[in-house]
């Protein structure tokens, strides 16, 4: 399916449009964090510790008196950047791997056994081990998550490649003597765009959750960087006195991940003819 037509059809679905709107708002807040934030996210104020939501502090303050709203807006920058880079990296690597495995029969079995082996580890456990090895930093969290999600993308892309490579037009361009690299790039890849698009949105969502989990365990982003995960991790012991310190960063994660999944699901519904028939 062509992209413009896909976009037009997506616009007809209210829930999909709503989640796209939510994502745009979050992205704009993140990009313009210094302007949208009402205070410096790292300004501490001992006298204003654990204050509830008010006109001055929209979402209250945390255990050091830092403004929660400003921290969530700034945290969005880090959380979204990590997730976006993870989605981008694992989709590029996974697509390359899946294309090669799906197109070249000889490489299929060995590559897929490696993918199977990588997927035998629970995601979070593998991510923890990788971050432990690479060292806790923003970039290393991204690297670890890319390694975790690449096999997943590779599997999906390989499955789709296996279908597309058998199509008549591929046989035709092959018979015309088109170079293999060109067949892959110009004829197979464009047909995989839709499943890849779905994977981008899902991995984006998973990465937001995974980064938060890693940071929560203290093996992800260094605690002094405000991400949605480090915010919950740092403040959780005050949850009984001031529920908002945990509630709001959590809601930010949930809204973002949910919107991404609705978007991905919407795209998949429109693209998967089998699903469309049954719906």
């Amino acid at each position, binding site marked *: 399916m062509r992209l413009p037509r896909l976009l037009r059809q997506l616009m007809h679905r209210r829930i999909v449009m709503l989640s796209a709107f939510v994502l745009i708002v979050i992205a704009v807040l993140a990009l313009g964090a210094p302007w949208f934030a009402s205070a410096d996210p790292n300004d501490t104020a001992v006298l204003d510790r654990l204050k509830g939501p008010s006109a001055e502090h929209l979402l209250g303050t945390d255990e050091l008196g830092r403004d929660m709203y400003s921290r969530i807006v700034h945290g969005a920058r880090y959380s979204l950047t990590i997730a976006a880079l993870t989605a981008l990296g694992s989709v590029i690597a996974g697509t390359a791997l899946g294309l090669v495995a799906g197109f070249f029969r000889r490489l299929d079995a060995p590559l897929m056994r490696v993918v199977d*082996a990588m997927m035998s580890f*629970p995601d979070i*456990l593998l991510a923890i*081990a990788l971050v432990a090895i690479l060292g806790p930093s923003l970039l290393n969290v991204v690297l670890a998550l890319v390694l975790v999600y690449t096999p997943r993308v590779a599997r999906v892309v390989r499955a789709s490649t296996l279908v597309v490579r058998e199509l008549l037009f591929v046989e035709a361009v092959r018979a015309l003597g088109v170079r293999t690299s060109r067949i892959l790039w110009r004829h197979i890849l464009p047909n995989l765009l839709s499943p890849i698009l779905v994977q981008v949105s899902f991995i984006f969502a998973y990465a937001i959750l995974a980064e938060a989990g890693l940071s929560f365990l203290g093996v992800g982003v260094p605690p002094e960087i405000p991400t949605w995960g480090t915010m919950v991790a740092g403040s959780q012991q005050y949850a009984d006195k001031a529920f908002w310190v945990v509630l709001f960063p*959590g809601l930010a994660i949930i809204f973002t991940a949910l919107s991404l999944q609705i978007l991905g699901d919407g795209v998949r519904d429109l693209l998967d003819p089998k699903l469309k028939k049954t*719906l």
Partner: protein
Amino acid sequence: MSGPTPVYRYLASRIAGMLMVMALVAVIVFVLTRAASGDPVSVLLGDQATADDIARVKKDYGLDKPLPVQFGYWLREVVQGNLGQSIFLQRPVTQALWERAEPTTLLALMAVAIAAAIGIPCGIVSAVYRGRWVDQLFTGIAMLGASIPSFWFGIVLIQLFAVSLGWFPVSGYGAPGAPITERLHALMLPAAVLGVLNSALIIRFTRASMLDVLGEDYVRTARSKGLSESSVVLKHALRNALVPIVTVLGLTVALMIGGAVVTETVFGLPGIGNLVVSAVLRRDYPVIQGALLVVAAIYVLINFSIDLLYVAVDPRVKL
């Protein structure tokens, strides 16, 4: 057509494939843990250690040999069931893992039971009333469940049911030597967290699997025989739809062994995930290595057993 030969050939190829994945898992685990830049020996011995001390301890643990040699040594021991000695816990890794196995296993089983109890009925209803409001509601709930971070849900449930209502302990796994009832009681909240969140996946799978089956000819035949709708759905369709659902349930159990790290940490459960996190923070390689290896091996074995089970129970699985 299907004499004994294809069965054996199938079994042999499946076992070969499984062993290859296992071998790759071993290589990955070994390379990962040895690629770490930190030096466990200097961490263990502290600042006071002389170069001689470090060299001696490295020799004791075989850390002075080239990597492929170390891998060979290690694999030989692993095959014999020896995962080495924990540097910090001062005991064999197998023993450390075994001590942590109970909470993790019970947690995984309870959580999957909860996930199945929620997910299968909701998924069936969703499929039967596809496109209606119930379906949209359950599909929405499933997506919501997949968007909630487990640590956050854990903290919320602790605040509600442990701190405010006092129905469950805030954290821990009962006193040492506590009766099994107390331990199971301590596992209820964490199991609820994992079960509810994972039910999202089960709802989706049940729905998709039921939709596949409901379009089959034998379901139409059952309907045209005049069977009641509940009999068609529950007896004819569900039985056949269960095959992929059971796979997901089995794999979910496998993934929760070692994958429930965050939940175990939130609830202070002395499980395998918890062991790995503390091992990571202390750079205790043998424990990280052993845990990753065992956890992945369990996954591979469960996956393999499910495949074999299909051959045994489903006459349609052609070899």
